[in-house]
């Protein structure tokens, strides 16, 4: 009996914890199905009374999505800015890091460890430090105010190399040596033998770097002055001020790409072993 109560309590606690994590997201999802009228009624700031917890729509409505998709061309354009920044970053980062991590783990060449040390240092340097050199180079290449100024520095961070190296270390040298003796080329070994064994690492890298650039803020407000080129990660918060009626639906739409990528990789990502 006592055991039973404890296990019920445990499940209650589990549900409570999960709800705590999910609440803001559920709240956003539920609110995205309210009409813009209902939203402005519920959340107009006032000093008269406190906002109330308003989770379930009075009437299910797709108005916010209709507004966001069909009546706000600006919103969709900014959405594409986010895609145009993030996809190249993830693609370049994954490809370049795979090659480099392979080189740093399974090849011997002069200065290897010293060069890798640079990557480790860079890994821990925050954007407040690295943005200054980034800016100097972007300015010299006259890339300021273009999307490239956001793509290139993010695509060449040290994160991918360090992460993938961590995974590749566990591949035994013999496997690679055997393939080499079989006459496989280095590129062939990388794509046919190494990468399939580090799927978890690739998944983690793609998801984490996607999320990182999808959420890009600090680089945008320094490197980009043309608001037409802002990605949604910055521009979305401005909708809260000008167009609060559709903010929830915009948030949901903005959430879809990282969610799809995550679902695609979820197996590998969750089984990540470090």
């Amino acid at each position, binding site marked *: 009996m006592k055991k039973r109560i404890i296990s019920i309590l*445990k499940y209650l606690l*589990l549900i409570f914890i*999960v709800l705590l*994590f999910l609440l*803001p997201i559920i*709240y*956003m999802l539920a609110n995205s199905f309210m009409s813009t009228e209902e939203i402005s009624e519920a*959340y107009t700031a006032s000093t008269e*009374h*406190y*906002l109330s*917890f308003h989770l379930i729509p009075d009437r299910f409505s797709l108005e916010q999505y209709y507004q966001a998709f069909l009546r706000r061309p600006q919103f969709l354009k900014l959405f594409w800015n986010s895609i145009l920044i993030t996809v190249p970053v993830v693609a370049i980062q994954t490809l*370049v*890091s795979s090659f*480099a991590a*392979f*080189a*740093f783990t399974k*090849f*011997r*060449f002069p200065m290897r460890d010293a*060069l890798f040390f640079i990557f480790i240092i*860079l890994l*821990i*340097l*925050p*954007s*407040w*430090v*690295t943005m*200054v*050199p*980034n*800016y*100097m180079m972007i300015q010299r290449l006259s890339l300021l105010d273009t999307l490239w100024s956001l793509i*290139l*520095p993010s695509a*060449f961070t040290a994160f991918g*190399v360090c992460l993938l190296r*961590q995974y590749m270390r566990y591949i035994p040298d013999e496997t690679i040596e055997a393939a080499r003796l079989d006459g496989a080329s*280095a590129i062939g070994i*990388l794509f046919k033998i190494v990468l399939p064994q580090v799927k978890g690492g690739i998944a983690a890298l793609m*998801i984490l770097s996607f*999320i*990182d650039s999808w959420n890009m*803020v*600090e680089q945008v*407000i320094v490197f980009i002055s043309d608001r037409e080129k802002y990605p949604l*990660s910055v521009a*979305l*918060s401005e909708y*809260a001020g000008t167009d609060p009626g559709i903010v*929830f639906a915009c*948030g949901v739409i*903005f*959430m879809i790409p*990282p969610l799809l990528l995550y679902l695609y990789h979820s197996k590998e990502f969750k*089984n990540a*072993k*470090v």
Partner: protein
Amino acid sequence: MMKLKSKQAITGIAFALPALVGVFVFYLIPYCISLYYGFTLQNEFVGLENFSLLMRSNTFWLSMKNTAVFSLIAIPLAVAVPFLIALFLSTFERFSDFFSSLFLSPLIVPIASVIYVWQILFSDYGIINGILTKCGADPVQFFKGKWAMALIILIFVWKNCAYNIILFSAGLKKMPRDVMEFARLDGANRLQVITKIVLPLLRPTTFFVILLTVISSFKIFREVYLLYGMYPDENVYMIQHFMNNNFANLNYPRLSAASIVLSVVIIAVMLVFFLFERRSSE
């Protein structure tokens, strides 16, 4: 044999080259340029002038203080809370994949998407304050004063728990169950099992989790900016704010000096951390 080795070296360098070029072009070379800016003022060598100017800047110290306070509270919390949750999860016999996906959702959902929910929850006349007043407590101004920092820490922990729980859970899963059973039989209580057996075995995982949490703690500016804008309450004025405001008036000497000082500080702190990790794992 010699030939094989040199061929290997050439392939290795060729493979590492794209990453190296990127790192040199966008990080290393311009960093050296900023070193030059750090010690000059209008093309004149001024020694440590820029640095002493920086040290006398109140906003710089304010941002340093806030960032330090944030890191010292938020990072331990964002490591400890997921550890406890992971321990709790490990007591379930079967734990479905579905639940661990749910835990990851705060990581997947973009910051900008949920920011409006935070605003509704925590604004002066927001939902939380509504509940507080109903319960008879005084309303709290979450966006001002000490509470602003607390709110930021809460959001940070909420967001970063996700991945850390997954990592800890994976680490706990690999743990040999019989070791714990033996210890339990030997009369060790639960706390002793955790501190004496689980934690040491989890050290590599913990190290990795701390590293990841530190790296993501550097990005807290995103939440602060989206919630409070470029000029927030002075309790959440972060280093990134200081830097961005100096970008706004293109103060290269000061930016370079700050970048140099901060990189030295961070590298020093992290070296100590790495050494500590190596020492304790021996």
